[in-house]
């Protein structure tokens, strides 16, 4: 097919603004799936994605559409993750497109992620088609939202499409707008091959499947190709398109979106953002924008049963096949034994991985509180990066410590500006900017320590604005902070997995909160358990779990041993989720207590 009849587009939206439902309607309308195959939100394939109503991985689908002009078009929809953790993946997906549907909820208007994604799309020079979704809602205010889009983003909304993905209103108009307004891709078939990898997944039969957008040249099975970032050369075994299920084709040409399989076993060799070229006739320059993904948040993952260590490693390796952004390395904790320090793109990413490990691999895990990467400048001139609080050198060895800061954009109704400012202040934020979106909504910009964001900033933000605030953030560098390591001692012994790095001024408060919280979590045992919070050798807070006096079943009614045993089994089941730390049995949730404190 000539490039003039190809349109490549994405859908960008804030979470819950209806992106997945719209994608479903487009598939349905163009007959990409028969009614029988149609399942709600087919693009969100993972069970977890569907449950949480979010898109974690990008997906792609080819729609065949006969437009009103009578011509047949090949529309490639590239779905993008809607969460701040996956901004890089979004940017790669956008780089594979010429246009984007900007979906905005007709009742809620622009939110922080809408803005973040629009700016990304504008950076890639995409043609943006505004779609005001959910116009069937009684609270819909399409005109207000249009004005907002014009004022805030500066987009012309005179031919914005009014739609309801739920009821099917506006779907045809959207397809027509794509054909009319999104420019066809450029690119020549006789140029050397260059193709952008915007996603990948692992298939146990075909190996890694690269999701690509061909910029120039042709690709077909048998061809030798090279990954420019990793310099890996392989032979193509299959190429195809997304219908949305993988369908083989003879070749892919310029402008097309499809997949390439080449018996690659490691997802690391097929990096999102990398450029595929011909091994024999390579291009000289890769496509712009590739960078290695670096995790922002780290935590320790430990099996409750130490015998599960190998299973955990296997599971992590399997997940990594599909998720190049997940990193892990073995780690040992005095309290928790053998485990892994794992790096994630953000908190959602961490949550998702943890849940998949427990659900899909049936592991019972202890997760330590997430940490950012601190830069420690030692007195001897050495600079080290630590992502595990227990590794912080002693105060004498430290000259100063830097922590990562983010630029946070918060969109909030007028009435809550005070609350957001107060919260951000409390979380050590530096005010940067405030702009009115319209007469009722405000954009606030703050520089905040990333550690505060992953601690409880987002939850607090939601609760102090009754859920109205939306947040987006990006890393903006490191700053020096007065940080100290807060240790927790159980029964006199420090528990490395419970150490946290906190700001000096908040240490006492956090220590008190933490010991109180742990007191509520750690069950009474045969002996008294002191819980102490300490900085260095100085104890700053203390609580005590009283000793249990007795624990024995006295009576046995008429030989009913089964009932007795069941009671013991139940008790034992409860203990399963506990970890023996020294002489103390500590429930799993204790290690996360540091996070969820109120």
């Amino acid at each position, binding site marked *: 097919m000539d490039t003039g009849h190809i349109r490549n587009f994405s859908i960008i939206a804030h979470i819950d603004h209806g992106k997945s439902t719209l994608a479903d309607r487009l598939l349905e309308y163009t007959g990409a799936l028969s009614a029988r195959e149609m399942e709600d939100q087919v693009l969100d394939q993972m069970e977890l994605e569907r449950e949480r109503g979010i898109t974690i991985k990008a997906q792609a689908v080819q729609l065949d559409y006969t437009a009103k002009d009578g011509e047949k078009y090949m529309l490639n929809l590239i779905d993008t993750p809607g969460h701040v953790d996956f901004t890089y993946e979004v940017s790669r997906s956008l780089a594979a497109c010429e246009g984007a549907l900007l979906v905005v909820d007709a009742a809620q208007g622009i939110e922080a992620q809408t803005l973040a994604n629009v700016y990304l799309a504008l950076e890639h020079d995409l043609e943006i088609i505004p779609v005001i979704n959910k116009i069937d809602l009684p609270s819909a205010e399409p005109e207000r939202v249009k004005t907002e889009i014009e004022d805030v983003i500066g987009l012309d909304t005179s031919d914005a499409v009014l739609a309801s993905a739920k009821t099917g209103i506006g779907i045809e108009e959207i397809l027509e707008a794509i054909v009319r307004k999104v420019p066809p891709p450029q690119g020549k078939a006789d140029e050397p091959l260059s193709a952008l990898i915007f996603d990948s997944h692992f298939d146990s039969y075909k190996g890694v499947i690269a999701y690509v957008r061909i910029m120039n040249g042709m690709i077909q099975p048998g061809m030798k190709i090279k990954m420019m970032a990793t310099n890996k050369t392989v032979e193509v075994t299959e190429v195809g398109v997304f219908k949305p299920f993988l369908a083989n084709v003879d070749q892919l040409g310029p402008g097309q979106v499809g997949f390439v399989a080449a018996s690659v076993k490691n997802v690391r060799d097929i990096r999102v953002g990398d450029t595929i070229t011909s091994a024999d006739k390579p291009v000289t320059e890769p496509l712009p924008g590739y960078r290695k993904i670096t995790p922002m948040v780290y935590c320790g993952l430990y099996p409750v049963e130490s015998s599960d260590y190998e299973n955990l490693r296997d599971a992590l390796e399997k997940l990594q096949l599909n998720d190049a952004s997940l990193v892990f390395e073995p780690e040992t904790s005095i309290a928790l034994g053998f485990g892994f320090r794992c790096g994630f793109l953000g908190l959602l990413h961490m949550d998702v991985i943890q849940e998949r490990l427990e659900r899909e691999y049936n592991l019972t895990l202890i997760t330590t509180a997430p940490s950012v990467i601190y830069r420690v400048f030692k007195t001897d001139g050495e600079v080290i990066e630590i992502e595990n609080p227990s590794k912080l050198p002693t105060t004498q060895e430290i000259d100063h410590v830097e922590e990562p800061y983010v630029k946070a954009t918060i969109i909030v109704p007028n009435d809550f500006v005070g609350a957001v400012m107060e919260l951000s202040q409390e979380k050590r934020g530096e005010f940067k900017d405030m702009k009115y979106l319209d007469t009722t909504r405000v954009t606030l910009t703050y520089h905040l320590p990333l550690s505060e964001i992953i601690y409880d900033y987002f939850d607090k933000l939601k609760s102090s604005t009754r859920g109205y605030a939306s947040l987006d953030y990006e890393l903006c560098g490191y700053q020096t902070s007065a940080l100290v390591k807060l240790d927790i001692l159980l029964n006199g012994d420090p528990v490395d997995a419970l150490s946290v790095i906190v700001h000096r001024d908040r240490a006492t408060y956090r220590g008190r909160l933490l010991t109180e919280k742990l007191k509520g979590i750690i069950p009474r045992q045969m002996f008294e358990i002191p819980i102490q919070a300490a900085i260095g050798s100085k104890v700053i807070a203390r609580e005590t779990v009283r000793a249990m006096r*007795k624990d024995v079943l006295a009576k046995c009614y008429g030989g*009913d041993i089964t009932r007795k045993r069941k009671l013991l089994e139940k008790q034992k089941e409860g203990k399963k989720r506990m970890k023996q730390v020294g002489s103390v049995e500590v429930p799993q949730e204790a290690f996360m207590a540091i996070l969820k404190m109120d």
Partner: protein
Amino acid sequence: MSKLGLYVHIPFCRQKCLYCDFTSYVQAEHLFDAYTTALCQQIAEQGGMLCKPPVDTVYIGGGTPSILPLPFIEKILTSLTTKFSIQPAAEISMEANPGTVTKEQLTALKTLGINRLSFGVQSFDDKLLAAIGRIHRTADSLIAVEHAFAAGFTNISIDLMYGLPQQTYDGFASELKQAAALGTSHLSVYGLKLEEGTPLAAAFDNGQLTLPEEAAEEAMYDLMTDFLPKKGLLRYEISNFACQGKECRHNLKYWHYEPYLGFGCAAHSFFQGERISQVADVEDYIKKMLIGASTIAMRETLAQNVVMAEYVFLALRTTTGMDLEKFRQYFNIDFFSHFGVVFNKLRHQGLVSATPKQIWLTELGMKFGNIVFGSFLPD
């Protein structure tokens, strides 16, 4: 082969005690006859069916067996003796409520062959008895025991409770003294446990009930383990004390992993490696028995690792503990090669002790029995 124990459940009471969650019915006199018939039918079926080992213990429990009129008891005992080979020296126990017995009744029971009585005295403080919904008072208990001695019983047990609402340490101390002074050869002492669904548990949840402080309750426990042996009542199981040779042989069967058959609704059997329970509802039981339907509510054949765990934790309830050689014979495996890791951890915690022949719970282990028992269960 081990000798057999027989348990007969009498699920009737005059009044339900406020802490009790066991199967029993009040105002069910109209069921006495039908229930006895059903019981005898079950006894006949099971006694006649197979070649059963000789019986050396019978236990008629409840509920309150003593409210069942004598002719019914007689019928049940006759049924048992004709269908089973009950040895002449068998221990034949019956539970009785001190508020429901007369001298004549006790004498008649003795004549029928009952040779051990267990009185649900529970407390020697009328205020406490009222608070837990017992129908009898202290005077009734004293008279009942006196009558039992007069009727010729030499094997008498009383039940006591500690940790009752409003009970004090001093109060319990004097109750223990009174109990010992009665001169019975057996004493069971249970801590009150609030069972879900009982009026007492509900009252506690509503804040209408205060129980003794944990420290006071523990002190009561300590006093009982210290005081009773000095009076010749030696502790032979977590909650049981007896003069030497007067231990309840039927209850020991539970701890020694010996077989027993249970008759009546909600009764439990352990026979040929199977645990079986009968339906709990009395009318359901009678009806099923009558129409020849199965009365079995639960039947489980235990996996070998569960059998091992049960064997160990039941034996450990007794003060003599578990005989290692018997374990080896029963399972054909050395105890330490199977449970060594678990056992050493418990020993390290001071909960168990061992000689080459025997393992047993320490004083601490008795208090934290559940920690020990649970450790042996498979993960």
